[in-house]
């Protein structure tokens, strides 16, 4: 996201060259001599590519969501309306179908639950790990690598791996549960546990990332702050609570944005875990619903509408972050 935006802004900032008083003819740089024009061979190709394939595709998707495009054939752009969004939030029978369509509330709820649960647990666990690893322990690098390693795995590998872990007869998780006296539990297909199981596996994969971000933040705090707080009489808990945590705000925000976006993209994980985009209603998220509507039911326009909802959610998460970064001059 960062790259195309910065390109656009750079274009905009060039408009600062234009003088509000209009200047005089003699002062004006000839068009071809302007820096923005002369550097065009460098910025123009990526700019056009990004404009077409990212923003063009988004725009096209938005337009598509306003049509009634289903099945085979070509979309009809003459009759645009918001019917798909109405259907998405209230259900009912749309004009392009004979059957009634489920609203997206269920998958929207699951998406938000997964996003919040996963992100919060990831951050908390990452922070705890970072504080532990920061205690000048032995084999620090080894621990860091061990915790970070899961992140290098693809979603497919993590999903298949946890499928084994959760297995009702041979899975390690179930062996542990059994040994604690709770008997083997069906996890992956259990409607009550599905979403939690997915979130847990994702936390396992990404808490190492949160740890690294927090560790960098902790290392940036001068030792003298810890010492000053101790001399000031703060207990360890109060020290972290009042002196350290507030200084980790930037780290928290960066990790939060990345993790939330990962949670929104958890489609591939669910796809691998449930060998398709039918995880069942209790683990259905917007991404699986969207793909199912589009590719299983050929409700292209309706799928597009769900995609737009997902896009707006991502925008709401990323935009404040980018804006705050921009205001701080980091971009």
């Amino acid at each position, binding site marked *: 996201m960062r790259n195309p935006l910065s390109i656009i802004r750079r274009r905009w900032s060039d408009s600062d060259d234009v003088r509000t008083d209009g200047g005089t003819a003699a002062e004006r740089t000839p068009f071809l001599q302007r820096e923005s024009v002369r550097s065009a061979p460098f910025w123009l190709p990526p700019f056009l590519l990004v404009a077409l394939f990212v923003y063009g595709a988004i725009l096209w998707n938005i337009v598509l969501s306003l049509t009634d495009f289903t099945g085979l054939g070509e979309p009809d752009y003459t009759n645009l309306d918001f019917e798909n969004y109405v259907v998405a939030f209230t259900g009912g029978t749309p004009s392009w179908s004979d059957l009634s369509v489920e609203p997206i509330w269920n998958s929207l709820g699951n998406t938000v639950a997964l996003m919040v649960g996963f992100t919060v647990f990831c951050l908390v666990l990452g922070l705890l790990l970072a504080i532990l690893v920061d205690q000048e322990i032995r084999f620090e690098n080894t621990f860091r690598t061990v915790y970070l390693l899961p992140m290098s795995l693809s979603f497919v590998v993590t999903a298949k791996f946890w499928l084994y872990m959760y297995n009702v007869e041979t899975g390690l998780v179930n062996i542990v549960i059994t040994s604690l006296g709770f008997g083997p539990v069906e996890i992956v297909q259990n409607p009550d546990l599905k979403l939690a199981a997915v979130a847990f596996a994702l936390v396992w994969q990404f808490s190492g990332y949160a740890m690294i971000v927090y560790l960098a933040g902790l290392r940036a705090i*001068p030792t*003298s*702050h810890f*010492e*000053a*707080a*101790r*001399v*000031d*009489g*703060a*207990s360890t808990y*109060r020290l972290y609570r*009042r*002196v350290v945590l*507030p*200084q980790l*705000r930037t780290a928290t925000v960066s990790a939060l944005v990345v993790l939330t976006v990962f949670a929104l993209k958890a489609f591939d994980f669910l796809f691998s875990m449930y060998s398709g985009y039918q995880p069942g209603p209790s683990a259905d998220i917007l991404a699986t619903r969207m793909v199912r509507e589009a590719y299983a039911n050929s409700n292209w326009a309706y799928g597009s509408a769900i995609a737009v909802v997902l896009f707006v959610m991502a925008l709401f998460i990323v935009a404040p972050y980018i804006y705050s970064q921009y205001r701080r001059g980091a971009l």
Partner: protein
Amino acid sequence: MAELTLDAVTKVFQEGDGSEVVAVDDVNIDIGDGEFLVLVGPSGCGKSTTLRMIAGLETISSGEIRLGGSRLNEKQPAERDIAMVFQSYALYPHMTVRQNMSFGLEESTDLDDDTIRETVTDAATTMGIENLLDRKPGELSGGQQQRVALGRAIVRDPEVFLMDEPLSNLDAKLRAGMRTEIQRLQEDLDVTTVYVTHDQTEAMTMGDRIAVLDDGELMQVGSPLELYHRPANQFVAGFIGDPSMNFFDVSHEGGTLVGDGFEYPLSSDVASDLGETTDCVLGVRPEDVSLVESATDAHDFRTTVEVVEPMGNENNVYLSFGDEPSDEEPDQRFVATVGGLRRVERDSTVVARIPEDSVHLFDAATGDALHNRVLEEDVETQATIN
């Protein structure tokens, strides 16, 4: 009573490969109530480690630190009733000046918010920063941050102030101003203070007493003048004073010191101080070397001016023995400080007088002082009463 006692305090660091490094070696200092003690020494001499042991930020390997008679070794920093000013100030960047100053009171006392507010405002007024209370440290200049750091320490009204090179991040002008201010503040508050610095000027001007450390060992404790005029050994003599004391390696041969390019006869009194020692070091402070018209005395030497450093109020004249300017690097060069209005030309030949009253003699092997300069009575009393 806040008498701080360091009793045979030792700090040993374990290296990664199992070897041990002795950072502070058997240091004994008694710091009286309300006294301003300066710990001074070159980098790595253990002065900061000593301070951090008093603060409780480092464990004490052996020995004991007592405050008002009670043992501090096992106490947490919070329980020691001390306040520390850090070299980097260590102000919490996310808090305003007021919050920074309130933090210690909130964490270590049961005072209610109104009292804390009042105390902080009072301390801020003392430091002249009451108009900065709502700012964050990032919006303050170095000097203002320094004041906040000091304010944060005084607001807690501790038994002991610890200051770890608090002025080293300031520019020279500001440093001189803050030096006086800290001194005045300490006198007003009458709080026992331990101040660490590597700057001998700070040590001389600020301290009631100075403790000189080298390589973890305590070299000497005494008043500034005592250290200046009666150094216990060659290290202290060379460390205190700027420009440093001149040292000449000499051998003692029957009442005469024989050095490289000069001979220095000794009176029988001074010679008897040397006893059997033959290898010694002759020391003389630059301001005691005078440039005279002609050689009339056995302690007058013909020398060549190598370099002149004009300081305005005085000139530092670098001399070498002999009356011929040469291109070679001289074996023995020494400094004389003369009045700023006196003209001394480079490469000219001058007569330097090294009065016997002002020489110090050290054992070349151990560095111990064998003979210190003769003092006029008033200086003498000042140096000893402290």
